[in-house]
C-alpha cells in the first residue's frame, strides 16, 4: 500500500482508509506505552487529518491550488506525516505527564531526570531553530526589514482619505518611539499633512481604532506586496527601449514564484496609484520618468 498527496487530493474515498491505517500505525509507535489508549491514538491521528484538511489537500481536487506538499515524493510526504505524528505524540505525552505531575508533585523528592524534561527539551529545541519561532520575531522582522516597512508605509498612506485617523495614527507612532518611521512618512508623503490642523484631536482613541482596523486589513491583503514586487521588477528589468518607452510583457514579469495573476494584481495596484498607465494589456509600457517613480515606490526614504 502507498498513497500520494495526489491520491488524497483527487481520490480521497478510495485512500482515506489507508491514510488512517498508516497514521494509526505511526501514532501507536510514537506514543509508546500510551499507544494502547484509543483516546490518545485518536487525538494524534485526528490532529494530522485536521491539518491536511485545513491546508486544503483532503479531497479538494482542483478547487484549491497545489501546495508545496503536492510536489513531494511519496517518501517525503510519508516523512512529513511521520514528523507531524511524532510532534503531536510528544505534545500528548507532555500533557499526560503534566497531569500526572499535578497529582504526584508533592510526593516527589525532586532532582531526578524524567521523561517530561526530556520531552520539554526536545520540543523547545525543535521550535527554537525555526525562523520566526515566536510571533515577536516576526514582528521585529516586519518592523525592521525595508521591504516590509515599505508595505507598512503604503498602508499608512492609504489612510489619507481619513485625515483624522491618519493624524491619530502618526501621533501614536510618534509617542511609542517610532519617530524614524513617522519622519520617513512625512518626508515621502508630506503633502498629505498640508491640511491637517494643529488643534488637539477629539475622540482620538476612536480614530485610532478605525485606523488600526484599516491597517490590519491593508497589511493582510495581497495586492500591496505584489505591487512592491512588480514595481521592483519593472524598475530593474532591462527592458528594450522603443523611443523613450520601456516595454515588457506581463508573462516576462511572471517568474520566480510569481504567477501572471499575481503580476496583474500588482500592476492594477500600481495603475491605481498613478504610477503606471495599464489597462490589462499583455505588454506594460512605461517611460523613464515612470521607471524612476517605480523605483522610488520600492526604495525607502526617497
Amino acid at each position, binding site marked *: 500500500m502507498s498513497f500520494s498527496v495526489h491520491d488524497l487530493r483527487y481520490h480521497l474515498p478510495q485512500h482515506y482508509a489507508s491514510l488512517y491505517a498508516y497514521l494509526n500505525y505511526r501514532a501507536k509507535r510514537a506514543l509508546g506505552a500510551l499507544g494502547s489508549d484509543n483516546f490518545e491514538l485518536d487525538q494524534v491521528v485526528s490532529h494530522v487529518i485536521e491539518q491536511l484538511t485545513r*491546508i486544503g489537500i*483532503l479531497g479538494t481536487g482542483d478547487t484549491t491550488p497545489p501546495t508545496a506538499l503536492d510536489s513531494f515524493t511519496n517518501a517525503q510526504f510519508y516523512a512529513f506525516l*511521520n514528523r507531524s505524528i511524532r*510532534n503531536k505524540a510528544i505534545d500528548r505525552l507532555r500533557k499526560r505527564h503534566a497531569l500526572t505531575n499535578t497529582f504526584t508533585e508533592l510526593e516527589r523528592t525532586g532532582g531526578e531526570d524524567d521523561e517530561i524534561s526530556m520531552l520539554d527539551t526536545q520540543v523547545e529545541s525543535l521550535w527554537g531553530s525555526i525562523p*520566526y519561532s515566536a510571533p515577536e520575531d516576526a514582528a521585529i*522582522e516586519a518592523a525592521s526589514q525595508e521591504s*516590509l516597512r515599505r508595505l507598512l508605509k503604503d498602508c499608512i498612506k492609504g489612510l489619507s482619505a481619513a485625515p483624522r485617523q491618519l493624524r491619530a495614527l502618526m501621533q501614536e507612532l510618534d509617542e511609542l518611539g517610532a519617530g524614524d518611521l513617522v519622519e520617513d512618512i512625512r518626508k515621502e508623503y508630506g503633502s498629505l499633512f498640508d491640511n491637517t490642523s494643529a488643534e488637539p484631536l477629539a475622540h482620538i482613541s476612536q480614530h485610532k481604532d478605525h485606523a488600526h482596523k484599516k491597517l490590519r486589513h491593508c497589511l493582510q491583503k495581497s495586492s500591496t506586496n505584489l505591487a512592491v514586487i512588480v514595481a521592483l521588477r519593472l524598475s530593474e528589468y532591462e527592458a528594450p527601449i522603443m523611443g523613450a518607452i520601456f516595454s515588457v510583457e506581463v508573462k516576462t514579469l511572471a517568474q520566480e514564484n510569481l504567477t501572471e495573476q499575481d503580476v496583474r494584481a500588482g500592476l492594477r495596484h500600481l495603475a491605481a496609484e498613478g504610477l503606471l498607465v495599464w489597462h490589462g494589456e499583455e505588454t506594460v509600457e512605461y517611460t523613464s520618468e515612470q521607471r524612476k517613480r517605480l523605483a522610488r515606490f520600492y526604495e525607502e526614504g526617497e
Partner: protein
Amino acid sequence: MNDHMQNEGQPNPGHSRQSYIPLARWLQEVLAIPTPPSPPERTSLLETGGHPIEGYHPQFYSQIPDFVAALLKDDAQATLRYAPLFYHLIGCSTCHTAYLEIYDAMRAALATGGEAQIVAPSSQAMALTPPRMLVYLCQLQINSARAVLRQSRHDHVDRDAWARTLLRQAITISAYIQQSSLRVRALQDLVEVATLALGTGDAEPAAHSYSSVVTPGAGVRKGVKVRRRAEMLDRPMDGEAIDLESGSLEGLLTQDGEMLELRLHDLDESLRGRYLLISIPLGALLEPVRWLGKDPHAIRSQVPVDAQGNLKTPLGTTDLRLTNREDRHMLEAMFKKLDIRPL
C-alpha cells in the same frame, strides 16, 4: 535582482534590533486576532460535533506550506512574497502554531532526499476504518466548508467551489458509515452549511419541507406505523424506498429502473389539483442524478396533486441503486431536504 533584494530587505545597519522593538510591539497589538477560548479536553473524538472550527483562516492556512518551502530554500523574497500571511502570523496564534508544526515536518521531509523506505501497513478497506474516524472526517469537512464560506463572504472572494467539494466529500464518506445514528451525526450540519454554499436560502418559503428518514438498515424502520403507511402508499419492497417526513406528513422516494420517483401523501386541500415545484437543495452538490428539467431547485411535477392529496412524480434518472447500501446512504443524504411549492 536577488542581490538587490537581499540588500534592500536587510534592516537599516544604522539601527539596532532594540530600536525596532516598540514598533514591533505596536504591530503585534494592531494585528492581534483574539485567541478563541481553548475548548475543554474532549473525552471522545465524536465530541467535536457540530462545533465550528475556531481560529481557522483558510486563505492563510493553505499558504503556509508554500511560505515554509520558500524559507527552506532561503528565498530572500519569502517574507515579501507572502507578506499578507507573514503579517497574519504575527497576530494569529492558531496559524502561527500551525506554521511551526508544518515548518518542522517539511524540514524533516525534505531532509529525507525522497529516497527513504516506506514502512506501512498493508492496503486497507473503508469497512475496516473505525466509524468514529469517518464521522470525524465528515464533521471536519462540513465545518471546514463553513469556515471557507464565512471567510469568502468576509473577503468578497469566491471560494464556493472549494466549500462545495468539501460538502460532496462529506456526503460520499458518510455513505460508508453503516450505523444510522452515526450517519446522522456525521451530517448534522450539512443542510445548514450547504444552504450557505448553494445560496438557496432566499427562496420564498416552502409549502412543506420534507427530510429523509435515516434508516438503521436497509428499509427497516419504525414497525407498525410504517407498515400502515406503506400500505397506503403502495410501498415497494423493503430497501427500495427512502422515507420522507414533514411534520405529520409522510412521503417516499422510490426507484423504477434508473428513474427516481417522489410519492407524497395527505397533502392539504390548498395543494390538491395543482402542479408542484419541487426543490432538492443538496441535489446540486452531487452529479449522479440527471434531474428532470436539469435544475434540482425547480423540478416541475409531471401531474397535479390528486383529489386525495397524493402525488407520484418522477424526479430524474441515476445510476445509483436504492438496493445498494452505499448508494442508498448517498441518496438519503441528498434528500435531507426536499421543499415543495404550488406552481
